[in-house]
């Protein structure tokens, strides 16, 4: 990946997400079977397969790519993750409106928009054992890296590392949102599937 995310590089990144998600479908499903209802892998695969099909089209700028991802996810994923990832990409895209390419700060703005969007839409707080626990640290890490002058790729890497750590840290806690919340103490020791898929999305370009 280049130091900036132009339209083509944004498309490549999304394509890479599609590949990672397809590869990790079973893993995500297994996580979701343990503390949810076992469909997160299939949901994400279905959504990003539809997204990938749209990537052959013409896009004016990164915002348009990211908005297409958003609307496609909203209309193909369903479940909790569909509206939440839809909102993430929608609010993220709105945060980079008008930019022909995303530098480090642009990527950080996208991730912050996405993180805040997910948090607002799902009404989850940090520590509720949801994808918010990956998005929020990712946004902070991205902003810190961008402030240090990191380029697009480096900002995305910093965000991915933080998301992965955030996903891991969902393991020891009980859930307060999503299906896992029904399990009470029994969710302890298991990773949140949505936090895991967020880490895959942010890490797909690596």
């Amino acid at each position, binding site marked *: 990946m280049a130091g900036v995310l132009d339209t083509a590089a944004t498309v490549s990144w999304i394509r890479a997400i599609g590949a990672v998600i397809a590869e990790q479908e079973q893993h995500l*499903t297994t996580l979701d*079977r343990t503390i*949810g*209802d*076992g*469909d997160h892998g*299939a*949901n994400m695969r*279905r959504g990003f397969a539809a997204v990938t099909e749209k990537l052959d089209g013409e896009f004016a700028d990164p915002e348009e790519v990211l908005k297409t991802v958003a609307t496609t996810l*909203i*209309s*193909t*994923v*369903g*479940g*909790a*993750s*569909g*509206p*939440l990832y839809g909102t993430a990409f929608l609010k993220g895209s709105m945060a980079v409106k008008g930019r022909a390419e995303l530098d480090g700060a642009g990527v950080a703005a996208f991730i912050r928009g996405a993180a805040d969007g997910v948090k607002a*839409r*799902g009404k989850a707080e940090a520590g509720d054992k949801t994808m918010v626990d990956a998005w929020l640290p990712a946004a902070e890490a991205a902003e810190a890296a961008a402030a240090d002058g990191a380029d697009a790729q480096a900002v995305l890497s910093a965000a991915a590392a933080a998301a992965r750590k955030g996903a891991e840290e969902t393991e020891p806690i009980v*859930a*307060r*949102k*999503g*299906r896992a*919340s*029904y*399990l*009470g103490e*029994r969710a302890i020791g298991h990773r949140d599937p949505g936090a895991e898929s967020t880490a895959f999305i942010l890490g797909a370009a690596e």
Partner: protein
Amino acid sequence: MKKLINDPEDVVRESVQGFGHAHDDILTVFEEPPFVIARKDAPVAGKVALVSGGGSGHEPLHGGFVGRGMLDAAVPGPVFTSPTPDPILAATKAVDSGAGVVHIVKNYTGDVLNFETAADLALAEGIEVETVLVDDDVAVKDSLYTAGRRGVAGTMLVEKIAGAAAERGDDLAAVAEIGRRVNANTRSMGLALAPCTVPHAGEPSFTLDETEVEIGIGIHGEPGRERIAIESADALTDRLLEPILEDLPIASGDDVLVLVNGMGGTPQSELYIVYRRVAEVLAERGISVTRKIVGNYVTSLEMQGASVTLLKLDAEMTELYDAPVHTAALRWGL
């Protein structure tokens, strides 16, 4: 995994097609966007319309409750996965007669968010939507700190009674109000003896050994809150009833509707053994069972288990429950 299916990818499509064909006298299936099951005569002029939906795998919920006196449309998502806003919006538009549409939504994050988006989009097109959230499952405690109680078997009672209110000509606010009243007076709790397998997952949602029972299961193959050693049907029934009776403000002399619901793989004979115990306990407490219904209504694929639902009735709810209904899964008076 052994199932009577073709490709796991095609389960919902083929099943809904078969369902549509089998019940073409009362409903129509639209496949694009996938899927909307609408009452044959929708939109019914002047009538408030009811739309429900959610993940598939709970049949006959919701498609089996489409028809005169109950739902105007149902939107089945993939197995155990809420449908996206597109078909919900399509269903809402297809059945609106101008009198407005009530969305009956089981309280799961996915269902709530997708119906919310669809309602926003419908409003943008000038359709009034009221949402009735169903959250009857007392297995979920501390609801302040969770996604809240789940909507389970009580959903069919909300759909039946609100559907009858719409059929008799109540306006949008009134239909939504009675739906919420039913929900407020309904409590459910379920258990599983054996889990179910989501076709595309290929493996059971949880595993239980030969002596274990999951208490407080939901309807998506999610495990319950507690795993115990198997007990007699009477003792297990008591475990379901107890939290219901603790939570539902009910007293000697009150009227209730009892719903004993099978999770899909339980023989009817066992459901009646559970019903027998429920009737016994309620009689001891002086509570009158004035309506009762036993069967597989809100299921979890082939899961073995059952749930108990109590609805504290008033005269109006009773009258609306008794009103004629003609759907694939519930029919009387017509």
